[in-house]
């Protein structure tokens, strides 16, 4: 592989700092400015190509910052088999970049060769729980490492669900040993859309399993909140984040922004707010 740097040279430890999602329009700014940020996260599938500029940028940026790989297309919740080619490409990336974290969503997006390329909610049933656990185990075995699973935003629920979402997330972590990527904005969005108490969600999540927190902006459409990743983090989400830090301690926190991507400076300003919350929670705990 070209430009291969021995992995020992890479930043490999994730301290409980604020990071940002790395998107292509910011590559050059990151390299030129080298902002003081704890870590960076990328969507794994954006680097599934065999070569070319995206991988070259990731190689250069990965020498400066700890990297986290965040998958959007594996579809852990699909009722049929995971795609072996998708797993192989993910493993190739994990092997090359030795990321500090690897995460996937607790959702489905494909069945029978047809993909919807979205993060769709599962019915929370015993059948789905057994299936997700088997896919998480298969992924961890194949990659040879622990993964994190992330709770999603949702706009619908199934009448035949028998398990609360928070209990489902906790059960997957407990049964497979995987970690949890807690998306605080997603909890808030789902709580508003489905009318549950977000505190109840936080209280059900095992403290030791949470290794990463996501924060992002949402948008109100009528009486629903949509997880657009296209705005600043809402005040109510900051409040919930403080409560999450009080329960889970200082956890590496990522600012995600995907639509209407702002300048790097705006992203860094949001990350600085998260960093300040992390400091405050630390001081409170001390």
């Amino acid at each position, binding site marked *: *592989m*070209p430009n291969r740097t021995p992995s020992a040279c890479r930043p490999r430890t994730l301290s409980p700092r604020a990071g940002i999602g790395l998107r292509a329009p910011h590559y050059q700014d990151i390299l030129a400015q080298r902002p003081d940020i704890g870590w960076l996260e990328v969507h794994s*599938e*954006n680097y*599934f*190509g*065999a*070569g*070319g*500029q*995206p991988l*070259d940028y990731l190689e250069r940026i990965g020498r400066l910052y700890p990297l986290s790989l965040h998958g*959007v*297309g*594996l*579809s852990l919740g*699909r*009722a*049929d088999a995971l*795609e072996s080619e*998708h797993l192989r*490409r993910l493993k190739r990336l994990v092997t090359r970049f030795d990321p500090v974290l690897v995460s996937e969503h607790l959702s*489905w*997006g*494909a*069945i*029978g*060769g*047809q*993909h*919807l*390329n*979205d993060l*769709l909610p*599962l*019915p929370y*049933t015993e*059948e*789905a729980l057994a*299936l997700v656990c088997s896919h998480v185990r298969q992924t961890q075995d194949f990659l040879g490492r622990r993964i994190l699973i992330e709770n999603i935003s949702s*706009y*619908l*629920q*199934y*009448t*035949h669900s028998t398990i609360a979402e928070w209990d489902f997330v906790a059960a997957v972590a407990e049964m497979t040993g995987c970690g949890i990527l807690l998306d605080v904005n997603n909890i808030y969005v789902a709580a508003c859309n*489905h*009318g549950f108490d977000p505190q109840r969600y936080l209280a059900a999540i095992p403290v030791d399993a949470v290794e990463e927190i996501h924060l992002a902006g949402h948008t109100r*459409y009528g*009486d*629903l909140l*949509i997880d657009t990743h296209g705005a600043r983090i809402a005040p109510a989400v900051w409040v919930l984040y403080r409560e999450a830090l009080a329960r889970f301690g200082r956890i590496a926190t990522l600012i995600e922004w995907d639509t209407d991507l702002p300048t790097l400076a705006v992203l860094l300003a949001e990350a600085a707010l998260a960093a300040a919350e992390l400091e405050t929670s630390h001081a409170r705990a001390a």
Partner: protein
Amino acid sequence: MPALRELQAAFCAAMIAGDELPLAGLLVENGKPATERLAIYRNNIFHNLLAALRDVYPVVERLVGEEFFTAAGERYIATHPSAHGDIHCFGAFFGAFLDAFPPARTLPYLGDTARLEWLVHEAFHAAEHAPLSLADLAAIPADRHGELAFILHPSCRLLTSPFPLQRIWEVNQPDWPAEPAVDLAAGGVRLLVHRRDFVIRIEAPSGGEYAFLAALASGDALASAYEQAIEIEPDFDPGASLQRQLANKVLVGLRATLPAMSAKR
């Protein structure tokens, strides 16, 4: 209660074909009808896939405008569902789709333009390969050169079209300084698309050189590729072409097909 597999198949059908009946009673309404909840997902899915098409096909979009592109995209998404979790793989058949898309009938070059853009997309993500130097070739006895078979850079793609595609592509780039004027009667092209030093290049080799590269790409040895080239272009100069395409990082390696030669060394 449906099995998860049935539920997901029904959900897919509701998203792509709009048939929501099999989901009746399975979704909590809670003050908002199921059909409105499904519409949010359908809209998200459509926008994700349309954005993926838009990223790959900016020239097609410039040629037809946003509204036409959106309508064509909607039809494409419905008839050619995504088959990969990696959304960058979506849209491979857009050229063939546009060939047969009735509203595009007055733009016969649209399909070839899309095919060119897909090759550009493939070249962008193709594997790396270290270059080959003249010195590497010099190490091989000259009397064996005819037997050499070359490896082309993994990004190399060859395309022919009866339309002036290179010009269509050039004048529809965002930094093109003038009006995007194209003389469609200018005739067809034989194009080489490749990535060199992270820049995508669209080049128009001569007829002989195109045949030469096409033969080498299919694994033919140099002597055979030369014969195919001079059929098209009698005064084709293979030495000059080799030098040019080595420097151009198009010919980047030798296939290991000379067992007799390695035994001799």
